[in-house]
């Protein structure tokens, strides 16, 4: 197991190199002037553009430039992001926890409701409960995220004024950047608890509700379908008959015996969905003006902020590898037949 993890982690630099080089190569399609322009405050200063190009060696050979970027990264310097108006490393540190928080809350909703609905639907196969669960899941699946997000925002914020967009309220902003609030993890929900500040916690949570629900609905539909078919398959297996023959109660047969086997494909799906959420909550973060990494990536891409784009993709690649590793480890926890070595 440890050997497996080490081996997978050794692969990490390769993946990161591949992804970043590809992106680096693509950004070279832009002229040095375009790449430099974002760093020039006053476009009327004619010499400034040339100055930036010369200073950062933007006309050098692509490999040389890439090598320079790599050695910077190795020293922990990801460059400066004009679109976020701060160093890339600092931007990632600030925006990533918000996205992870959003993704985690979303996945908790998806897994909890998805597994429950799916199992429920399978147990009541072809009865009205099953039809209802299927209608809900198909409905959720066919509703585009940007439509749903806007509708929710319109109704719950526009009409009812319940859940405001953004990451937290103005008051919370004052508190968390004030002297009495200690940042332990960067995850506001956890930090609020550690600081014993219930108001901040509730405020951050209420800002999470709409984006999390919006993200949840699409993933939830798929989860229900996977869990339902997996559960149906398991319920027909021989060991379920054995469990019944032993005189176990219906609940034990369904949840302990069939459920534990049916959950295995759910882990695959949940980890794919989780990783996708980490790198791709772009639309939802934009709709709800949520201060996450997706919004940062979009702004960087729109403004041709190369340092920002590279930093963003570097981080997504790392998360991707780590997320896959995590799901492999999770498998071994559920299925004893899977051994990592």
């Amino acid at each position: 197991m440890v050997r497996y993890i080490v081996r997978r982690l050794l692969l990490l630099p390769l993946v990161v190199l591949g992804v970043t080089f590809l992106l680096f190569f693509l950004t070279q399609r832009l002229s040095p002037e375009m790449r430099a322009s974002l760093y020039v405050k006053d476009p009327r200063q004619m010499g400034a553009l040339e100055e930036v190009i010369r200073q950062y060696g933007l006309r050098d050979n692509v490999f040389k430039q890439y090598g320079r970027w790599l050695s910077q990264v190795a020293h922990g310097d990801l460059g400066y992001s004009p679109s976020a108006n701060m160093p890339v490393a600092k931007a990632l540190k600030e925006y990533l926890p918000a996205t992870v928080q959003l993704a985690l809350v979303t996945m908790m909703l998806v897994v909890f409701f998805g597994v429950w609905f799916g199992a429920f639907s399978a147990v009541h196969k072809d009865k009205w409960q099953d039809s209802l669960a299927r209608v809900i899941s198909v409905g959720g699946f066919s509703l585009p995220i940007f439509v749903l997000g806007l509708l929710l925002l319109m109704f719950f914020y526009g009409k009812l004024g319940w859940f405001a967009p953004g990451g937290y309220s103005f008051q919370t902003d004052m508190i968390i950047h004030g002297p009495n609030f200690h940042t332990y993890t960067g995850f506001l929900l956890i930090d609020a608890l550690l600081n014993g500040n219930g108001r901040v916690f509730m405020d951050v949570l209420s800002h999470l509700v709409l984006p999390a629900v919006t993200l949840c609905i699409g993933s939830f539909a798929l989860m229900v379908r996977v869990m339902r078919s997996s559960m149906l398959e398991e319920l027909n297996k021989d060991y379920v008959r054995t469990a019944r023959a032993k005189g176990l109660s219906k609940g034990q047969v369904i949840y302990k015996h069939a459920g534990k086997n049916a959950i295995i494909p759910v882990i695959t799906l949940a980890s794919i969905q989780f990783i996708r959420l980490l790198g791709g909550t772009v639309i939802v973060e934009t709709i709800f003006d949520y201060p996450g990494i997706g919004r940062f990536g979009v702004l960087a891409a729109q403004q041709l902020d190369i340092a920002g784009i590279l930093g963003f993709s570097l981080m997504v690649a790392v998360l991707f590898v780590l997320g896959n590793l995590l799901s492999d480890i999770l498998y071994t926890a559920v299925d004893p037949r899977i051994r990592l070595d």
Partner: protein
Amino acid sequence: MREAPVLQVKDLQVSFTVDKKPVPVVRGLSYSLPAGKVLAVVGESGSGKTVHALSILRLLPPGAQISGGEVLYKGKDVSACTEKELQRVRGQQISMIFQDPAASLNPVLTIGEQLTETLLAHKKITKLQARQEAAQLLEKVGITDAQKRLDEYPFQFSGGMCQRVMIAMALALSPDILIADEPTTALDVTIQAQIVRLIKQLQEQARMSVIFITHNLALASQVADEILVLYGGLCMEQAPADELFAKPLHPYTQGLLASLASVNTRPERLPAIPGQPPVAGENFAGCPFAPRCPHVTDKCRQSLPPLREIGARKVRCFWESTK
């Protein structure tokens, strides 16, 4: 066979629903199982032997249902029990082992977990006590190093070992009846013999009744006190094992016996019964064996022969020499 029967099956009928029409699979089966005896139910694939066994504990797959008759366990009709009552009967009074032992155990739970949950479902004991008992059970079925093996998973056991675990699990609560549904079909021949010996030995120790379901007449001869030959969902012949082997009455039983391979005689070809077993739902008015029977008459094709009693035996045939 004068003892009071522990299980009585009376005119049991089981049918599958295919395209919303019932297709009979077991067509009125009756027998009684005395305490401490082994009844072998012998038949080909599709004869209804497994379906009949599953219907005793009401473990039938969706789409199959008991459409008539009674299953009386010590006088109580199991087929009319509620689900809750049934849970007390299952595993505790009547337990069952199955054809494919490796698939019959849950792959993601340890052997210990699967054994102890059976005990805990029916007995008021602590988890620790259940574990001790589970270890003893494993030793009883010939699994050494029981304490360690309790923490292993089914995939770490061979097929024969899995069946031993299934047997341990089935006998955990000293049931009155064990239903063994082709317990050795998925196993090697050498392992088969071991498992059959084990079942026989445990049956004798506990004076338990066994319904042994098999397609293998030779195997049945090793364990059974009484043999019931099933064909097309009907009992063709029922007799004490030694009498049946000494003098099979029904042409089908004769055919089955003739097609057994023997070490002493080595014919060029093994004799086989020509034709195919009937498909459930085929509409036949007469004897289901008629199309393959060497002694068939027009009468056999037109009407179903009744099950006649001849001393301790029963046979369903019009043929003169069975009388």
